[in-house]
């Protein structure tokens, strides 16, 4: 993975040569930000395409196959359609909040992406409180949903927004706690540090054996609830609320909500990969020696497997009711999580880890 290194290095030196220190670093950040924006917008589009294809295979259908070879440009066409759509809205909406809501959601999901170590060099922002930053940012997203539901002056949207508020706040808890159990094992919040530990001792899910597997299951359940997907998609339950909080949005604003949902899915999957399955490390170090093999590939293979699992949940399970959703969180996930942390602490104290 030395090719991109040289490119960023040359740009870096060229910028610093022609501009003063501060201006150069700002332009560099802007450049990286636009690169990430483009990369993950396209990744979001192709996640939508993957979701529609996977859904079709589950449901005895073919999925999009008309626009472009194998329907690859289908979501591109959808994006263009959404861009060209008129931004309609009902008359008595709360103008400021209505327009602000989509930006909240899309900005939080994009900022969370900055922290992930896709490969050794390919990481925008390696801060030593990586995990903490991730949890903090992903909890701002729910404000956007609440704003959107409240300001669009539609009773169904209001109910959807209230449901999503309740759901995300309570599932924030078990996401944080399950990450905490794993951080106990690694001892550091820095993402690249976590991967370094896994290079020698094997993946964290193996190191932490039983409590780690429990933490992984809790994290997957809470993660799907966090992104309002699968059995917990009460926010936009088609058969109850129509389209939930984004009923009144159209055009590009709807595209932000839609894209943000898929990028959130990407975030949850990448947290799981970094924390449990050793980020860009190849399984059992088989491609350790070969230099030209891009480690980013391992990262995305693992992310795709986890996303496939989340899609499998979505197309099999019926929806939970609001109060069952909360009883599941407060009566089942939380107690198990707390016991799990104590169990993990005992194991580390008696250093039974592998």
């Amino acid at each position, binding site marked *: 993975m030395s090719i991109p290194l040289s490119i960023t290095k040359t740009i870096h030196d060229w910028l610093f040569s022609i501009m003063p220190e501060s201006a150069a670093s700002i332009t560099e950040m802007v450049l990286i930000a636009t690169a990430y924006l483009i990369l993950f917008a396209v990744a979001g589009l192709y996640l939508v395409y993957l979701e529609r294809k*996977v859904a*079709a295979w*589950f449901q*005895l259908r073919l999925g999009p196959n008309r626009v472009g070879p194998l329907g690859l440009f289908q979501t591109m066409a959808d994006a263009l359609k959404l861009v060209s759509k008129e931004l309609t809205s009902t008359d008595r909406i709360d103008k400021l909040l209505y327009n602000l809501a989509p930006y909240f959601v899309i900005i939080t999901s994009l900022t969370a992406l900055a922290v992930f170590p896709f490969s050794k060099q390919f990481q925008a922002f390696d801060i030593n409180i990586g995990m903490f930053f991730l949890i903090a940012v992903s909890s701002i997203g729910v404000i956007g949903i609440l704003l959107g539901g409240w300001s669009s002056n539609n009773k169904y949207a209001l109910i959807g927004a209230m449901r999503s508020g309740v759901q995300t706040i309570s599932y924030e808890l078990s996401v944080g706690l399950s990450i905490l159990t794993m951080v106990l094992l690694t001892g550091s919040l820095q993402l690249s540090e976590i991967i370094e530990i896994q290079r020698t001792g094997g993946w964290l899910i193996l190191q932490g054996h039983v409590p780690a597997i429990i933490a992984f299951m809790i994290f997957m359940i809470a993660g799907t609830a966090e992104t309002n997907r699968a059995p917990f998609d009460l926010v936009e339950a088609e058969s109850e609320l129509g389209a939930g909080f984004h009923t009144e949005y159209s055009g590009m604003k709807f595209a932000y909500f839609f894209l943000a949902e898929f990028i959130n899915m990407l975030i949850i999957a990448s947290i799981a990969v970094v924390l449990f399955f050793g980020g860009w490390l190849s399984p059992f170090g088989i491609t350790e020696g070969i230099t030209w093999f891009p480690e980013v590939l391992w990262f995305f293979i693992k992310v795709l497997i986890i996303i496939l699992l989340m899609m499998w949940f979505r*197309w*099999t*399970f019926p929806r939970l009711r609001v109060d069952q959703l909360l009883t599941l969180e407060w009566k089942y996930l939380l107690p198990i999580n707390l016991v799990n942390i104590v169990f993990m602490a005992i194991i580390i104290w008696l250093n039974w880890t592998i």
Partner: protein
Amino acid sequence: MSYFSDIYNGIKTLLTGMSVTGHYFVRARKGAITQQYPDNRDTLKMFDRFRGEVIMPHDEVNEHRCTGCQKCEIACPNGSIEIIWDRGIDEVTGKKKKKIDKHIYHLAMCTMCGLCIEACPTDAIVWAQNYENSVYDRTQLTKVLNQPGSKVKAGIED
């Protein structure tokens, strides 16, 4: 301790559910039931009793079997058949006889119930099997079943 058994068989039922969809996911290649309609147009053939549209078959000499007896018009529940008939001299017997002029069929109002075909004494009207009946302008749906210049086949008595 129903708490743990509750969780255990909860997860077990979830996994069996997933096994069913997984089973279909793995066999996605041959299991798809989508009919790609515009592409399979030439191979798509309707069953021979399919009720597409009422037509009046004409033989090669442009003769049909409709004597204009209006039985189908009476039998039709929603008035989608109108018969315009006029008096004509019958060549063989030389006396006045009812002759069909126009057999108007409103496909727009027809509910495909088949009572007209059931009521027709001389089997003059039958079902056609075409299924592409949509048109751009409603007037095109009012059809005249007997072709211009056609007349009744000899020897058909109602």
